[in-house]
């Protein structure tokens, strides 16, 4: 990887070309796509609920892609009042129809939620995401951004169904005293990045449908950043092994989304490894007048005993790891590509209990 001062202009040039092509290229064998997902949110909390920076009050997620014969390039840039980051940048070769080899920074396929919604808030029915699926810069405890190679394939099985296989290998995030730091494509990167391998095997009852059920696997070697010791862990690195299963099923007006993860944490220089379990189940029901009601239940086991999890819990209380959460809400798609959502949550975290009310406007442009 080039040195950061070289890397940034190269990346900007690639993005500029990509965006220019998105606007201009519409001839027969070249095509571009450009989409912006925006969201604005209001928040009120009780029971000492902090307004954590996991939920910026406004954000814009810009997705731009270019397809040229069997080759694809696309990027996802997220802008909030606090940061601008290139969340994904992938170059792909579709060497067999619906089988693509990608190089770049991608979302790990072993996350059931994030590979479906990414950063596009409008396509997510609810406002918040489950705590176990949070991004690294939102106090997330599981690596979500990997830089390396990703193979994705969907092949027919039976009359209508399909098998979907995704496997990724690359650089895992580095571990600091308070968070995971993924490899950055646009900023200097002082971290040490160990290897990461992740995968997903899913069954789709309909090749072109939205329902799927599958198994998830991830193994991440998380190295402490240069110059950092992690006294809380008594270790300078942690090996995370994740086994999971998920379901995302739609039947008529009903949709069920659920996942369960078993996370094993192996620490160097200690004799005692640790593990915990975290999962969630969300049920959605479409109603007349473009209304959708939803409810989510999150729970965990042994997270409160984990030294690894405690590493991400801020002492000032500005950020909280949720052990359990119940959420209830309603979404109204009141106009084309625009929605209003209300969500109520009760959260039990490592140190306290709290209640939250959130209201969000989300849209896709154009």
């Amino acid at each position: 990887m080039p040195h950061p001062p070289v890397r940034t202009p190269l990346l900007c040039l690639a993005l500029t070309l990509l965006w220019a092509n998105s606007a201009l290229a519409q001839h027969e064998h070249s095509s571009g796509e450009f989409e912006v997902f925006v969201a604005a949110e209001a928040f009120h909390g009780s029971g000492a609920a902090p307004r954590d920076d996991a939920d910026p009050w406004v954000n814009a997620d810009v997705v731009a892609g270019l397809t040229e014969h069997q080759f694809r390039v696309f990027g996802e840039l997220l802008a909030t009042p606090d940061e601008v980051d290139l969340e994904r940048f992938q170059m792909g070769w579709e060497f067999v129809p619906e089988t693509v080899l990608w190089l770049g920074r991608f979302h790990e396929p072993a996350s059931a939620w994030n590979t479906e919604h990414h950063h596009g808030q409008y396509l997510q029915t609810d406002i918040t995401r489950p705590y176990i699926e949070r991004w690294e810069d939102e106090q997330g405890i599981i690596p979500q951004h990997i830089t390396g190679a990703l193979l994705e394939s969907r092949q027919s099985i039976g009359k209508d169904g399909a098998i979907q296989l995704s496997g990724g290998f690359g650089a895992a995030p580095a571990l600091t005293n308070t968070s995971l730091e993924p490899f950055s494509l646009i900023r200097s990167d002082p971290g040490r990045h160990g290897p990461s391998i992740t995968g997903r095997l899913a069954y789709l009852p309909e090749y072109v449908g939205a329902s799927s059920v599958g198994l998830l696997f991830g193994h991440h070697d998380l190295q402490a950043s240069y110059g950092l010791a992690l006294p809380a862990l008594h270790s300078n690195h942690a090996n995370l092994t994740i086994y999971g299963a998920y379901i995302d099923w739609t039947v008529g007006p009903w949709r069920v989304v659920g996942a369960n993860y078993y996370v094993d944490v192996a620490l160097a220089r200690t004799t005692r490894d640790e593990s915990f379990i975290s999962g969630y189940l969300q049920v959605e029901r479409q109603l007349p007048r473009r209304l959708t009601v939803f409810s989510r239940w999150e729970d965990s086991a042994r997270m409160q005993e984990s030294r690894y999890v405690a590493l991400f819990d801020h002492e000032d209380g500005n950020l909280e790891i949720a052990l359990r959460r119940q959420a209830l809400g309603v979404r109204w798609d009141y106009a084309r590509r625009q929605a209003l959502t209300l969500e109520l949550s009760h959260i039990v975290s490592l140190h306290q209990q709290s209640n939250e009310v959130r209201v969000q406007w989300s849209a896709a442009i154009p």
Partner: protein
Amino acid sequence: MNKIAATAVLLTLLAAGTPALADEKLVLIVSADSNITQLDSLQLRKLFLGLTVTQNGNRLWPVLNETDARVKEIFLQNIVSMSDITYDRSLLRLTLIQGQRRPTAYGDIALLLKAVAADPSAVSYVWSKDVARDPRLRILRVLWHD
């Protein structure tokens, strides 16, 4: 007698105001230069949902006909089997997940026919009367008829 006459007048007016007449057909079209032979329902659904469909080694490109509301309604019901909002979300999802291109849409029938005629890998659907005796285009099959 007056009721019958009024009903007849009303039916005549309704028929005149409806673009799709009783013998109207929606047909699947490609360029006359295209080597696309046939597309079954699943291939067509994949194509218009933005997935990769190839024939003879060439990737096919879908072209949406948005020239009238009735064509769109038949397309949603018979080709992709989705509501308008679900179809739109499916395409947005595809863009978000892989930066994939959405099908090109035309609101003007002359421009749509010209675009399909010029691209041997393009596939679209139109009323049969719009392509009758047009040497630039070839009809693959009838998708819907009244």
